[in-house]
């Protein structure tokens, strides 16, 4: 009953928002086509693949987009090196969405399907965006619902499900003719099988030659999180160029608290080149039930040793270069860019240990690794 009331409230708020009297014109996104190749290497994991995006207007009121994305994964990660065997797999993701311009509002609806050998995720989403304050403010509200089906390669009978609900409010605000601020809130609730169907936790066992053994992880079946972010972008005349910064705080019912901040600079050279240099730092505390080494088997009702729920930080630097090239030979194209992006990220864990490095149980060196993230892509506007 409470859930129905809540959804009625959300629906009412969305309806009231759509019907607001405003006096500024919204426009649909530009028609474009992007072809991207991505590569991630770190912790003896390599993930590569393409991503294709096509967006096209249909008439004056509708814009549709489709995205196909692939992850080709080859993994010998720290978890694999600790208790499993290297593996390769592929994940395919396909998204379709449509924007509908109605009055001064853009309504967006879409669907995403992500499929891999032992995991299928489906997400449906709906959003509304509207400019107010004479076009100085853009407000976005969106809701998404996700359904996950989890399997296991080693056990064809294994089948679990999880549901997700995502609520988002976004705001971008023109402050001056050179300053733009953004605010975002996103609340997410999960229910169902939320742990990995393969991952193990370790516990002390004096009877074992190593001094420890492994058992399957066991997560709570619900999780609720909230994240707030605040960002700003300031125009600088030279170049032209701009500086930007954003920060985010996060907390959830598992006890994870996190924050991150990013600072960047964008520089345009002769309208042909665009350079973007940024630095990002992320920090989080561990989930309440996380432990690198439990004192005995089934030590708690919930067990987790995933490094993503441990205490850690990461710091990255990123450089993007865009070259705007002539497309005169193709009359149907308005513009084309060739883009290169490199991101170097350093991960340092504070309570997750590197078991393969050796040492007494619980005394192994703390885990750390560096990752290289590369993107090369072509963008065309038509």
């Amino acid at each position, binding site marked *: 009953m409470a859930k129905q009331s809540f959804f009625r*409230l*959300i629906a009412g*708020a969305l309806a*009231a*928002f759509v019907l*607001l009297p405003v006096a500024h*014109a919204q*426009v649909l996104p530009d028609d474009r086509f992007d072809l991207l190749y991505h590569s991630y290497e770190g912790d003896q994991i390599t993930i590569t693949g393409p*991503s294709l*995006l096509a967006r096209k207007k249909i008439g004056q009121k509708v814009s549709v987009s489709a995205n196909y*994305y692939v992850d080709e994964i080859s993994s010998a990660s720290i978890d694999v090196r600790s208790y499993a065997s290297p593996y390769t797999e592929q994940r395919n993701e396909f998204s379709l969405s449509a924007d509908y311009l109605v009055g001064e509002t853009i309504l967006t609806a879409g669907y995403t399907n992500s499929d891999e050998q032992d995991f299928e995720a489906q997400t449906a989403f709906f959003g509304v965006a*509207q*400019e107010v*304050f*004479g*076009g*100085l*403010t*853009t*407000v*976005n*509200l969106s809701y998404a619902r996700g359904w996950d089906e989890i399997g296991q390669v080693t056990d064809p009978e294994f089948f679990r499900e999880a549901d997700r609900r995502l609520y988002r*409010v976004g*705001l*971008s605000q*023109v402050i001056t*003719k*050179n300053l*733009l601020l*953004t605010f*975002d*809130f*996103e*609340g997410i609730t999960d229910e169902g099988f939320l742990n990995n169907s393969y991952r193990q936790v370790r516990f002390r066992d004096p009877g074992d030659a190593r001094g420890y053994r492994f058992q399957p992880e066991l997560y709570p079946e619900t999780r*609720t*999180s*909230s*994240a707030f*972010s605040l960002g700003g*972008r300031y*125009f600088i005349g030279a*170049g*032209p160029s701009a500086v930007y910064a954003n920060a985010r705080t*996060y907390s959830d019912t598992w006890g*994870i608290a*996190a924050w*991150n901040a990013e600072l960047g600079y964008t*520089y*345009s050279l002769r309208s042909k080149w*665009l350079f973007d240099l940024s630095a990002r730092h*992320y920090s*989080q505390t561990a989930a309440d039930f996380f432990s690198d080494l439990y004192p005995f088997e089934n030590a708690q009702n919930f067990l987790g040793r995933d490094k*993503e*729920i441990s205490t850690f930080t*990461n710091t990255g630097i990123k450089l*993007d270069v865009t070259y705007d090239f002539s497309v005169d030979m193709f009359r149907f194209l308005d513009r084309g860019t060739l883009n290169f992006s490199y*991101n170097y990220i350093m*991960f340092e864990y504070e309570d997750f240990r590197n078991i393969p490095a050796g040492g007494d149980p619980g005394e192994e060196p703390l885990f750390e690794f560096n990752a290289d*993230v590369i993107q090369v*892509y072509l963008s065309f506007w038509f």
Partner: protein
Amino acid sequence: MRTLISGVLLLGCAVSAGCSNIEPWVKPYERANLASEVMKLDRNPVSGSYMNHVHESREGARGASGSSGGGCGCN
């Protein structure tokens, strides 16, 4: 959580409804800088989406990681 989301939604609607007739303090002809390529919030959507995926796959935090997806008031 629900109270918080409801509050934000209602506040957004109230602010929007109450201020729809406010005179914009940055006039349309003053928005050239905001329309510049260097000021775009989501210049490369495919790349931005990929980087969100890279971060969310390796971090406990999730959500509120993208831009608002809105304009700069310079359309």
